[in-house]
């Protein structure tokens, strides 16, 4: 056991700042343990989201020493002793209170994505290799750290014309499902704004589930969109078919 210093952002939409706390750190402690200990003993009203404590629900996303992280899997022994650990809310979303942000926009975006639509002739047989390919995308726990770090959303706030990495992953899981019948490329290119992504891979770096968002979801989706738009034969056929 040793004392550790924390600086936690407290406040609401009207403003706030970092407040200092000290916690007796046990071996193996993670940031969320410390935040909850502060809540239990020093600040009963400290607002924080958490549920599973095991990196399975994605509730406790925050910025720890500036890095977008899940508090439940960020161990204190990762940081040099004697230096305060700074915990702040995700910057991209509006503040509700303390470490809690308003992430409701993400749920609105999800509603815009046409759901899984099976082929009418589906026999519901699949190879494990098909499963493995989309299982990576379906691991997403919706912590929205990828949305938090994406510069299109974080720096340019283009929430009205860009869905963000979480939803490229979601769309990839549908588009690459062997039994899905829909084509969502027009959505990606139009309302979704996939073209605004310039593949800086920031999202992939912060994903706590290790999903290769850029390599396995975004780039293949961009290729599909390009195939649709610029394949001259497909364009000709579309024109002949009147579409």
């Amino acid at each position, binding site marked *: 056991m040793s004392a550790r210093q924390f600086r936690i952002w407290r406040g609401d939409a009207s403003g706030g700042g970092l407040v200092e706390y000290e916690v007796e750190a046990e071996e193996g402690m993670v940031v969320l*343990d410390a935040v909850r200990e502060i809540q239990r003993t020093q600040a009963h009203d400290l607002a924080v989201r958490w549920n599973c404590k095991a990196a399975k629900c994605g509730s406790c996303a925050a910025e720890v020493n500036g890095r977008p992280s899940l508090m439940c899997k960020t161990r204190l022994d990762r940081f040099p002793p004697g230096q305060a650990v700074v915990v702040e809310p995700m910057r991209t979303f509006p503040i509700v209170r303390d470490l809690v942000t308003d992430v409701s926009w993400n749920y609105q975006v999800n509603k815009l994505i046409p759901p899984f639509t099976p082929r009418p002739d589906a026999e519901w047989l699949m190879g494990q290799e098909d499963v493995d390919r989309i299982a990576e995308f379906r691991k997403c726990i919706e912590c929205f750290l990828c949305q938090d770090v994406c510069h299109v959303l974080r720096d340019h706030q283009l929430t009205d014309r860009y869905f963000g990495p979480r939803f490229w992953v979601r769309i990839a899981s549908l588009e690459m499902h062997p039994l899905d019948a829909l084509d969502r490329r027009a959505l990606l290119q139009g309302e979704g704004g996939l073209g605004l992504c310039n593949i800086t891979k920031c999202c992939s770096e912060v994903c706590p589930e290790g999903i290769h968002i850029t390599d396995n979801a975004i780039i293949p989706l961009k290729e599909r969109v390009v195939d649709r738009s610029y394949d001259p034969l497909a364009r000709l056929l579309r024109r002949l078919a009147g579409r």
Partner: protein
Amino acid sequence: MATAAVETHEHDVVVIGAGGAGLRAAIESSALGARTALVCKSLLGKAHTVMAEGGIAAAFGHVEPEDGWQTHFQDTLFGGKYLNNWRMAELHAKEAPERVRELERWGGVFDRLPDRRMSQRAFGGHTHRRLVHIGDRTGLELIRTLQDKAVHQDVDVFMEVTITRLLKDGDRVCGAFGYRRTSGAAIVFRARSVVLATGGIGKCYRITSNSWEYTGDGHALGYRAGAELVDMEFVQFHPTGMVWPPGVAGLLVTEAVRGEGGILRNGAGERFMERYDPKRMELSTRDVVARAIYAEVKEGRGSPRGGVYLDVSHLPAAAVRRKLPSMVDQFMELAGVDITREPMEVGPTCHYAMGGIKVDAETGASRVPGLYAAGECSGGMHGANRLGGNSLSDLLVFGKRAGEGAARHAAQAPEPRPDEGEIEEARRELEAPLERAGGEDPYAVHADLQATMQELVGIYREQETLETALARLDELDRRAASVRVDAGGRVYNPGWDLCHELRNLLTCARAVTEAALLRTESRGAHSRLDHPAYDGFWGEHNIVVRRDGDAMVVEPRPVVTVPELVPLVEARKAKEATS
């Protein structure tokens, strides 16, 4: 009028809780044309269902063709020590495969066999390989599939809303009262039917796999509204929770670890399950394995940190990474243990309430008109002990049935007319902890409740400790009546949340303790040191808990049986007696 300012919504059906059961109920209700609201304390998709790792039990017989609903039914009753509601166990076994197929049609993706059908894995207490799964994150797959289905089907979702009271019109339920956690503002739902799907009561205990949300809200809301609770003495301690580091003590280690071939050893390196259940070994039922681990530790044969070892290092590392990826990550990141090379340290953790609102098997109806329940907050399906994998199938089968029951009731129920006086009273009750000048710290009361239940109403119980627990609960009730919010206001204030939740936790803790005191035998998850054997009378009776004025009444009630299924049950009993 003061209540004119309260945000009010009107629906045919309001579902409280958005885990698997609540989502499945909302989907069904809305598909039947009922205007449906889904209310949850957290964000959508964060419910405890995501923690279900192992799989969904459904007797497809893909791997072992001899499997069928009859064997699944028999396994469920054997696991529940024959206290299950037979009709629920029958419907569950018969309908689980169709509910899983339906998930696949809604976009759920599960691991496959070489012949491209869904794979099935072995699990404790299941005679055949029966659990449909995807790696060790089956619960996440289930909840995400249902979530996407629900939001594209016009279900109105209310996230981060806590319900503190069910509203009644005479005997009937006609809505619910609560508050938005993000603003603290009161909210009223008028509804012809209400479905409770709030999960369990794990936060009564100190060592638990459950999240902060598991405060027995549905159990307590239903009880206060006049519903009966059943089987409350049966609290499942999952055999394998993490024991280290301290911050994650109790965190679940999936039974799939044993399903895939994990071996349990004590501190001396002995494979101790040989002494407790030589036939099923590590894949014995959870009650047996939890007691075995408890006994090994208590008798000085534990690991240095007070658990036992669970080992998969004899399996090929690549297979472990493929079949148990989240366990590999969990131990590497939280404990610094590489489970492909070294054993895990595990011990029992409070995991699941078999007990809950007593419901009609066909419709999920409680005895209160308009009030339905499904999933963990309902009771009867699992009897004295739940088999692993039977909860995900339970919440699909009975979530659907409760959604249908609630929608059909709503179609012929009168217009919901909550009483303004009751809404005012609910509002005063909600705000009281904010207005008290002095009073108790809710966090301290909660910690004392958890210590009481952990020490006195845990895996082993006896009359004396249970009576001590009841006396302490009296004292905790008094303290909880004067809890106050000492910092912050209405906006996202966890201290205020806990004030309401404490009351629910205390109701559930008392129900567990009273029922445990009445059941003078040991059966399934309920072990009495002073009554270590089965008892004939109690083998044929459940315990029902109900409210009579301010008093809690606890009484035996004959088990619900199905005459046509007697031969199946007798055949299983005979087989167990001879093996």
